[in-house]
């Protein structure tokens, strides 16, 4: 018999099945198989449609068949989404059933019934498909060690979603725990294409690390909607092109329209519905909709029963919707990776290109869309920056460890610093986190008699849970995802989904709003349920959701700057864009790739300063605040500022003549703490930290705490703690989180380091064309919450006094 030496997979148990399907093995599958077989940890990079799921399972299935009737858990598969986990089961089922292989596999997520979970613990399947949170829970059981001690492989799917967030921190700690339980454990990561592949490898791999990569040679076909309408100066809703979008939907069999926020999704859906003369089947899909409604849309999508779905990032990952012909992206793409992920939802087939149309909602977005297309042609992806792990996740992990049984803190510390995000975790910080779990970690030792964990007398390094009841509290608080206070919406007895409490508070009885694509009238709110009825009202509000803002990636920002400076390209743009840029060049300046344009001009009675940083909203917001401080110091009497992804505008009573002196690195060092304090960024993050570290509970057993109450009490705790114990580990943790996530500290630092030599200062007689979009955004408020509250009270009181005609007396 001739054995093809170059392909060991021809002897694989699945080869028969592949042959029957007339499929052949991909090179990356062969390579992965070889590496894993020789003991390597591997990260595999491959586009969708290249058999990624199967790649992960090749070695486990081979092993399991060779081992014959292996008892117990052999392979763990981690998926970022519950829905994806179910999809994996379906995919795995096909070959295993058709070949009648003696391999058991099951899914375990938050949706699995307690009965099933119990059975899984008694008789684990060979392959368990689960999520990071369910894994953390499994590790917190007393028998975790026996459960996992024969584990051979852990497969992390969509690993690119696990690199830069707290969920990744949690997962990394739990992988190290598994490695302790089962030292022979091998790790396999599956990822979409990534720019910094080495970073993903560093994050995951320990044993003979290897990267396997398969690049798709077929580039997607992306173009910008050619609109006959005028592209607006500012705004984010694409109303101008709604008819043209509708025509595009009609042209394709099945279209997904991606938008950037849930509010945009509802708005787009409503506008399409108003012009839906052909009675196309259009649906809406976003994360706040009730699970059943979402599943229904997903189901219709995969069966091709709809013509178009308007969706947010909720439809971005994983699932295979075979018949999607076209993607329409409304608004700025914000990042190359994100755009590619979305575009990849169409034509889930390797050899035919995906098709997408970008619809810029304002003029800057046109340049951004153009830049994104250029970068995709060059296959220049965004880098995902690895971040140092957060403290609060370690605290939660310590609690989990205590739930599983007594532990030695030195062993635990050694295990934690093996996890990539925690390589630099200091022993001192770790000890403070132990104290945090023990009794809150306060300097005053008031809680000695109420500890949660305690040191054994005979060995001070061994800690133990005070009583088993505490395990229940851990299990109710596991995970790193903290949602805003939400309320359920009920239409009759049917639940439509969840809506932010803040939005509902601003409604009065009889007000109508749009949700799940329907116009609804607010009737009442009782026990955290919002009762609504259908409405025919034409005037309706659209719920906004906080946290919906996606920052512009550095990569794309650079590309936008490069493209803007390329004046030889302008003539290929729509006339209105060309005219806009040419006029800007004549009146002011178009900055070169590494220059920072600063424009100053008087308008009405104030002086305006516009700085084009292209640094993304987070960094610009921070810079805006710092400049406000700087302006105050120079006595320019600043009145406010507005930031977007591209620029910042400040307005002041006096002309900011020394802008070049103010714009430098010192600004950041001098005013940053103040910024964090006044904008309550740290306070907001403290709430997440307090919940993740289990200092305060999400819910108490038997008593559902509403999100609002948690927010309220964590605010008080923050204030008291800040005043009395400013060095507390949770304050430090919140501050670090703010620096990492909310203010783009590093990005801002980089810009300020070199900005002073590269400023192009233009003093103009009036507003420049480039400044128009951002000046139009000056409607937003820039007052802190504290100031806003006082302002509302003051204003209301004055109004009432005026009404009562007593203002003069006062």
């Amino acid at each position: 018999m001739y054995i093809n030496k170059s392909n060991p997979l021809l002897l694989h148990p699945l080869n028969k099945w592949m042959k029957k399907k007339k499929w052949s093995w991909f090179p990356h599958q062969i390579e992965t198989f070889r590496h894993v077989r020789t003991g390597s940890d591997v990260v595999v990079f491959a586009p969708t449609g290249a058999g990624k799921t199967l790649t992960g399972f090749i070695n486990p299935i081979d092993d399991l068949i060779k081992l014959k009737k292996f008892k117990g858990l052999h392979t763990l598969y981690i998926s970022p989404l519950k829905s994806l986990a179910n999809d994996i089961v379906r995919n795995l089922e096909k070959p295993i059933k058709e070949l009648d292989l003696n391999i058991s596999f099951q899914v375990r997520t938050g949706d699995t019934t307690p009965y099933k979970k119990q059975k899984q613990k008694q008789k684990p399947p060979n392959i368990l498909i689960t999520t990071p949170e369910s894994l953390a829970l499994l590790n917190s059981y007393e028998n975790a060690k026996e459960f996992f001690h024969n584990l051979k492989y852990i497969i992390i799917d969509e690993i690119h979603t696990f690199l830069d967030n707290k969920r990744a921190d949690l997962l990394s700690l739990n992988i190290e725990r598994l490695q302790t339980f089962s030292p022979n454990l091998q790790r396999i990561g599956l990822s979409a294409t990534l720019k910094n592949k080495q970073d993903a490898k560093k994050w995951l791999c320990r044993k003979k690390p290897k990267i396997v990569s398969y690049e798709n040679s077929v580039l997607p076909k992306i173009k910008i909607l050619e609109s006959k309408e005028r592209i607006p100066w500012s705004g984010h809703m694409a109303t101008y092109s709604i008819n043209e979008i509708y025509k595009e939907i009609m042209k394709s069999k099945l279209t997904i329209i991606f938008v950037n926020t849930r509010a945009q999704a509802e708005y787009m859906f409503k506008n399409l519905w108003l012009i839906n003369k052909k009675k196309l089947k259009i649906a809406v899909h976003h994360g706040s909709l009730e699970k059943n409604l979402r599943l229904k849309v997903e189901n219709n999508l995969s069966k091709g029963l709809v013509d178009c779905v308007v969706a947010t990032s909720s439809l971005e990952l994983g699932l295979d919707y075979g018949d999607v012909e076209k993607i329409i992206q409304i608004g700025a793409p914000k990042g190359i990776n994100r755009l590619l992920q979305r575009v990849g939802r169409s034509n889930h087939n390797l050899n035919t290109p995906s098709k997408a149309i970008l619809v810029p909602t304002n003029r800057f977005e046109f340049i951004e869309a153009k830049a994104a297309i250029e970068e995709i042609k060059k296959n220049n992806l965004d880098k995902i920056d690895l971040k140092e792990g957060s403290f609060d996740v370690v605290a939660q992990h310590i609690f989990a460890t205590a739930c599983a049984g007594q532990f030695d803190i030195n062993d635990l510390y050694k295990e934690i610093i093996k996890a990539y995000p925690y390589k630099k975790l200091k022993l001192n910080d770790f000890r403070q986190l132990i104290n945090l779990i023990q009794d809150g970690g306060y300097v005053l030792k008031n809680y000695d008699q109420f500890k949660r964990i305690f040191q054994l007398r005979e060995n001070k390094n061994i800690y133990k849970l005070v009583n088993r009841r505490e395990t229940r509290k851990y299990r109710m608080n596991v995970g790193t995802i903290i949602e805003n206070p939400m309320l359920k919406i009920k239409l009759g007895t049917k639940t439509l989904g969840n809506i932010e409490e803040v939005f509902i508070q601003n409604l009065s009885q009889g007000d109508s709003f749009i949700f799940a694509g329907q116009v609804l009238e607010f009737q009442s709110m009782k026990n955290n349920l919002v009762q609504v009825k259908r409405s025919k009202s034409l005037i309706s509000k659209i719920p906004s959701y906080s946290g919906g803002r996606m920052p512009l990636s550095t990569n794309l920002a650079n590309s936008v700057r490069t493209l803007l400076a390329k004046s030889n390209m302008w003539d290929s743009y729509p006339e209105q864009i060309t005219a806009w840029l040419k006029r800007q060049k004549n009146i002011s300046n178009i900055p070169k790739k590494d220059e920072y344009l600063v424009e100053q001009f008087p308008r009405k009675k104030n002086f305006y300063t516009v700085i084009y940083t292209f640094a993304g909203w987070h960094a610009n917001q921070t810079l805006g605040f710092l400049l406000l401080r700087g302006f105050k110091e120079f006595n320019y009497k600043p009145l406010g500022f507005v930031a977007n992804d591209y620029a910042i505008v400040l307005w002041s009573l006096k002309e900011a003549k020394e802008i070049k002196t103010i714009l430098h690195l010192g600004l950041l060092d001098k005013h940053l703490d103040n910024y964090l304090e006044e904008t309550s960024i740290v306070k907001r993050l403290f709430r997440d930290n307090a919940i993740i570290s289990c200092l305060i509970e999400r819910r108490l057993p038997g008593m559902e705490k509403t999100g609002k109450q948690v927010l309220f009490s964590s605010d008080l705790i923050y204030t008291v703690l800040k005043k009395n114990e400013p060095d507390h580990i949770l304050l430090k943790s919140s501050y670090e989180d703010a620096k990492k996530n909310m203010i783009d500290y590093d990005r801002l630092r980089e810009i300020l380091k070199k900005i002073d030599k590269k400023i192009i200062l233009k003093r103009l007689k009036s507003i420049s064309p480039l400044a128009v979009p951002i000046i139009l955004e000056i409607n937003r408020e820039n007052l802190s919450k504290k100031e806003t509250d006082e302002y509302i009270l003051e204003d209301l009181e004055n109004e009432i006094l005026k009404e009562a005609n007593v203002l003069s007396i006062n």
Partner: protein
Amino acid sequence: MYYQLINFGNEEFHAYPDKSLYWKRLNTLIVSDLHIGKSISYAKNKQFLPPYDTKEILNKIFVSLDKIKPSNLIIVGDLLHDVFSTLSLKYQDHKNLIQYMKNTDFIWIKGNHDENIQIEGFKNLTNYKIDKFLFTHIPIETSLFQICGHYHPKVKISHRGKTIFKTCFVHNEKIFILPSFGILTGGLDIHSKQISDVLGKNNLSIYPVGQDKVYKL
């Protein structure tokens, strides 16, 4: 410190932003629901709130006493959060309290949280009557004017498209409810059933507490 003038039962009261109420004619300061030691009582359920509430509440009280120098201090119930609270009352705190009692009469009304708790040197009463005014933690059936606590009232204010919640003083013709003087204490909407059952829904005088000022709605 700015105060808001409040007329209740034909007497002049001053509401302060620190959530205390001053009765001018009798030179009496009134506070309610301090919930001293709430943190320590949570700690027994392993919710480790910062253990500084007792210290801060007492400091707040002392600052107020130093400034206003009243001849009486009436605490309208829930001075203490529960039996564990006395654990957080340190020796020095106790000594300071005794010191203040030399110049100010302390009248401690029992609340639902502290009706069965004793502190050495202090006496607590079920309620206390002066002229036509009754001080009681929870309102009772009476023809007297009542000054109470218990409910930690808050008011929801919607104005120009924004909604905020503010701690407030609130009264109707006969019943006055003080806000909680504590620092880790939550609040209850004045339009909730519990408060409506006591005050009714109409003809309420509401005084939200701002940063440095008590407002009037």
